[in-house]
C-alpha cells in the first residue's frame, strides 16, 4: 500500500447554509481522495459559518479579512496563518474574493503556498458584465443584455427585450421581472446589496443545466460533469440534482476551456431551450456548491485540482456515472458558546 501524501489545504466558503458555499463539499471530496491525508484549514469571514463547527470536516478555522479590506490585509493574515499551519495549498471558493487571491498568488507562492487559479484577464472575460461580448467573440450563445447604472434605463432595455426580463446583481442574485415596477424594485434591492452596475438580461425559457468543469490552464479539459437541477430553492439554488449524459454539454465546456485556457474549477450555468439550444447564462469562476457530486460520480475535481496545483500531471477523466443524484438536507449542528466565543473574539477555532 502506498503511503498517503500529507497535505495542509486551506479552503474558504464554509457557509454551508441554504445558499451554500462550496467549501464543505470541496473538503468532503478532498477527504475522500485515497491519495491524500489532509489537514483542512478553514478560512472564514463570519462567526456563524457552519463549516467552522464541523470538526469532522475542518480541523482548524481562522477568520480572514473581507475582500473589501484589500490584498495587503489578506496577505498579511494568510502569512500569519501559514507560520502556524505551513499551508500547501489554498482553494478559494467565493467569486468576490478571487480577485484578491489571484493578485497575491505570486507572493503566496514565495511563501510556499500554492494556488490553482485563473488569471485576472480570464476572470474578467467571463464576468457578468462582459459575458455577452465574450459570447459574441467566441461564438457562444449568451442572452443579450444591457448594463445599466440608473433605474431610468430599464425602460430602454424593456423596449428591446420585452417582458419578462432578468434583473441581475453585479456579483450574485437575479430576479425575473414581469412589469416595470418589479424590475425597478429589483434594481434598487440589488443595487443596495451589491452595488452598480445592474445587468438587464433577455429572458430565456428552458431547463436549467449546470456543468462543473476543470481546466489545466493550457487549454485542456480535465473534467466536466453536467447536472440538472431537480429541485430549486426560492434563492435559485439546487436542492437536488442529477448527473446527465449529454456530449454537447461536455463539448461546450471543452470549447470554453480551449478559448480561455481556463486554469482551475468553474461552473457553466446553461439554459437549454425547448429547441435544444444551449445558452450560457453565467460562468462562475470557482467550484459550485454541488461539486461533491463530481466526486460521487467518478470525477473528483477538487482532488484533481489539488494534484495539478502540486505540479502533478493529471490525465483527463473519461467517464462518470450518469443518473447520480444529490439531495441536500439541513441539520442542526449543536455547539457551545465557548466555541462561538473563541472564533468571535480570537478569530480562530
Amino acid at each position, binding site marked *: 500500500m502506498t503511503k498517503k501524501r500529507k497535505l495542509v489545504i486551506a479552503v474558504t466558503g464554509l457557509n454551508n447554509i441554504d445558499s451554500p458555499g462550496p467549501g464543505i463539499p470541496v473538503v468532503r471530496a478532498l477527504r475522500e481522495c485515497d491519495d491524500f491525508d489532509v489537514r483542512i484549514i478553514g478560512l472564514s469571514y463570519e462567526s456563524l459559518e457552519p463549516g467552522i463547527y464541523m470538526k469532522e470536516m475542518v480541523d482548524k478555522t481562522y477568520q480572514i479579512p473581507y475582500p473589501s479590506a484589500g490584498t495587503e490585509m489578506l496577505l498579511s493574515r494568510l502569512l500569519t496563518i501559514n507560520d502556524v499551519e505551513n499551508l500547501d495549498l489554498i482553494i478559494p471558493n467565493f467569486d468576490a474574493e478571487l480577485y484578491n487571491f489571484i493578485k497575491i498568488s505570486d507572493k503566496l507562492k514565495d511563501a510556499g503556498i500554492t494556488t490553482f487559479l485563473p488569471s485576472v484577464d480570464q476572470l474578467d472575460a467571463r464576468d457578468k458584465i462582459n459575458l455577452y461580448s465574450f459570447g459574441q467573440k467566441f461564438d457562444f450563445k449568451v442572452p443579450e443584455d444591457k448594463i445599466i447604472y440608473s433605474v431610468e434605463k430599464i425602460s430602454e432595455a424593456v423596449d428591446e427585450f420585452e417582458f419578462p426580463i432578468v434583473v441581475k446583481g453585479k456579483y450574485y442574485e437575479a430576479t425575473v421581472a414581469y412589469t416595470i415596477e418589479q424590475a425597478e424594485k429589483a434594481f434598487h434591492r440589488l443595487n443596495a446589496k451589491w452595488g452598480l452596475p445592474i445587468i438587464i438580461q433577455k429572458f430565456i425559457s428552458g431547463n436549467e443545466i449546470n456543468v462543473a468543469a476543470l481546466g489545466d490552464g493550457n487549454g485542456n479539459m480535465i473534467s466536466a460533469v453536467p447536472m440538472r437541477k431537480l429541485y430549486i430553492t426560492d434563492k435559485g439554488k439546487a436542492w437536488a440534482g*442529477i448527473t446527465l*449524459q449529454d456530449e454537447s454539454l461536455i463539448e461546450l465546456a471543452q470549447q470554453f476551456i480551449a478559448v480561455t485556457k481556463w486554469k482551475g474549477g468553474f461552473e457553466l450555468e446553461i439554459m437549454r431551450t425547448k429547441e435544444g439550444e444551449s445558452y450560457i447564462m453565467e460562468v462562475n469562476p470557482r467550484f459550485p456548491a454541488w461539486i461533491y457530486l463530481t466526486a460521487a460520480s467518478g470525477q473528483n475535481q477538487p482532488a484533481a485540482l489539488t494534484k495539478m496545483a502540486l505540479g502533478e500531471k493529471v490525465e483527463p477523466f473519461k467517464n462518470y456515472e450518469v*443518473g447520480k443524484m444529490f439531495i441536500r438536507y439541513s441539520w442542526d449542528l449543536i455547539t457551545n458558546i465557548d466555541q462561538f466565543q473563541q472564533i468571535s473574539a480570537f478569530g480562530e477555532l
Partner: protein
Amino acid sequence: MTALLLCPQGKLKILAMKLKSNIATSESGFVFNPATGDSFSSNPVAAEILLLLKDNNSLKEIKQIILSRYEVESSQVEKDLDDFLTHLKENNLLEL
C-alpha cells in the same frame, strides 16, 4: 415526475417507433432519460410496452402480445398504443 397512462380508445397511427437507446427503463415502469434528467412513472401495461419497445419489438408484435395477454378489442389496443407513443414522443423518449 410525469405519469404515462394508456388512454381508453383509438386507432394505431404510428407504425414504427423505437425508444432512444440511452433511455433507462425498469420492470416497475420507471423511465429515466439521462440526457435531460427527466424521469417518469408508468402504469403496469405501459411498463410492459416500454420493455417490449426496448427489446426492439415492432408495433405489430407489441399489439399481438398485448392482445394475447389481455381481454381487449384490437381497435382499443391500437388507440392506446397510439396515444402512448404520442406521450413518449412529446417527452423526447423516441428516436426521430
